[in-house]
Each structure stands twice: as structure tokens, then as C-alpha cells.
């Protein structure tokens, strides 16, 4: 079983490499953010795999945190792009 985890890990690593290439290459900002987002997803998977690979599945907490943090980062980046700055001029209409 361990070897199959290792293979998945290697594949993930390869995919992460492609994402990094996309992030460095761009060309638009959105490509970079997309790459970062997809990179984050792969990191979450990599961590989950690693937990099983090392035999310490309590790494899953980490994976959960990564998923969360990744989301926040993307939202923050979009917020900045959309408004060209970082905040709402007025609060949106309530629910």
C-alpha cells in the first residue's frame, strides 16, 4: 500500500510543479491566482497522502487548515482585484 501512496505523491508533486510553472509564467494575474488555488488543492491532497505514507493520519487536521487558508487567500486576492483596493465603500445590502 505504501508504494501506491508514494506513486500518488509523486504524481501530485508533478502536478504541483506544473501549477508553479503556471504561477510564474502568468500571463495574467488571474492565471496566477488560479494556479495558486489549484496548487493549494494539491497541497491538501499531498498532506492527506503524506499522513498515510508516514503512518500518522493525524496530519489531516493540517490538510483541513490548508483547504481553509487557501480559500481565504483566493478571496482576498479577488477582493483586491475587483475593487482595485481592499474594502467595500458601503456595506452590501443585508439579507
Amino acid at each position: 500500500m505504501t508504494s501506491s501512496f508514494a506513486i500518488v505523491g509523486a504524481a501530485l508533486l508533478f502536478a504541483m510543479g506544473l501549477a508553479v510553472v503556471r504561477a510564474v509564467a502568468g500571463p495574467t494575474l488571474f492565471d496566477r491566482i488560479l494556479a495558486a488555488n489549484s496548487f493549494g488543492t494539491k497541497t491538501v491532497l499531498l498532506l492527506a497522502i503524506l499522513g498515510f505514507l508516514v503512518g500518522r493520519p493525524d496530519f489531516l487536521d493540517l490538510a483541513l487548515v490548508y483547504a481553509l487558508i487557501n480559500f481565504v487567500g483566493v478571496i482576498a486576492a479577488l477582493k483586491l482585484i475587483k475593487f482595485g483596493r481592499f474594502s467595500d465603500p458601503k456595506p452590501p445590502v443585508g439579507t
Partner: protein
Amino acid sequence: MIGIGLLLFLLLTATGILLVRNLFAVVILSGIYSLLMAGTFTILDAVDVAFTEAAVGAGISTVLLLAALGVVGQEDRGRNRRALIPIAVVVLAGVMLIYAVPEMPPFGSPEAPIHVHVAPQYIEETPSVIGIPNVVTAVLADYRGFDTLGEVTVIFTAGIGVLLLFAGRRRKYK
């Protein structure tokens, strides 16, 4: 093996940070850099550190950097300093460290001084004396609790500092 891959990606990302001009892209790359760093920490068994690095480096730092970019704009006009002195400094420091590498205790060796002197006692003692399984928490909060007090004070200082820098009306400078 996964570790080596991550390290190479780290190099790639750091080079990207060095070369890319657009500040926004730099911030995104630094977020990725932190995630990679956190992954590397996990492989090196530092779970708690990876946790923190992910939350701080990829999360809070990125948000704060982006928030700052929202105010200051995102152009790097690219006029750098004359490169001679920085290169000299960096090469000097780098050579000094690389020079030391061959005599460093081999990576992962259980006989390295740090694995035989202070740390074993932490690992042995913690379950019986402090009664919790996570040795890192035990050392952090108990054995070296005073360091952590300092750490909280640093964060407190940062908070006070930021509030102090922005408190009150904006001042007009001459």
C-alpha cells in the same frame, strides 16, 4: 524524494519572486512559497510548524500584504540599487554558510549533538511529568514557556505598533 521535489519548487518560486515585477504576482508567489515551505516542514516531521507556517505564511501574511497593496498600488518600477554591494554581501554570507556545510552533522543522523543532549529528556519526560502527548506543546508552553510569553508579547507589540501608527487623524507632513 518528495522532499527534494518540494525543495526544488521552493527554489523555482524564490527565483520567481526575485524576477517577477508585478507586486501582486510577487505576493501570490510568496503565498505559494509559504505553502511549499509548510509542505517541506511536514516532511521534516515538524507538524506544528507546518500548521503555523500555513496559517501565517499562506494565510495571514498574504491577506495583510494584499491589504497593503490595496493602499499602495502594485507597481514595482524596478529601479534597483547598484547591484555590486548587495551581490558582494550575499555572496559573502552565502560562502560563509556553504563553507560550514561539510562539517555540519550529517542530515538525519541520530548521533548529531542536538539529538543526544537536551531534547531526549523532553521526549522521555513529557508523558509522565506533564502528562500530554504532544511534546512540542509541552516544550513550547512549559519547558520554554517564557519564550512563548515573549512571543505573545511580540505579537502584542505588533498590534500596538500598527494601531499606534494609524491612530488619530492623518497628519499632514510638510
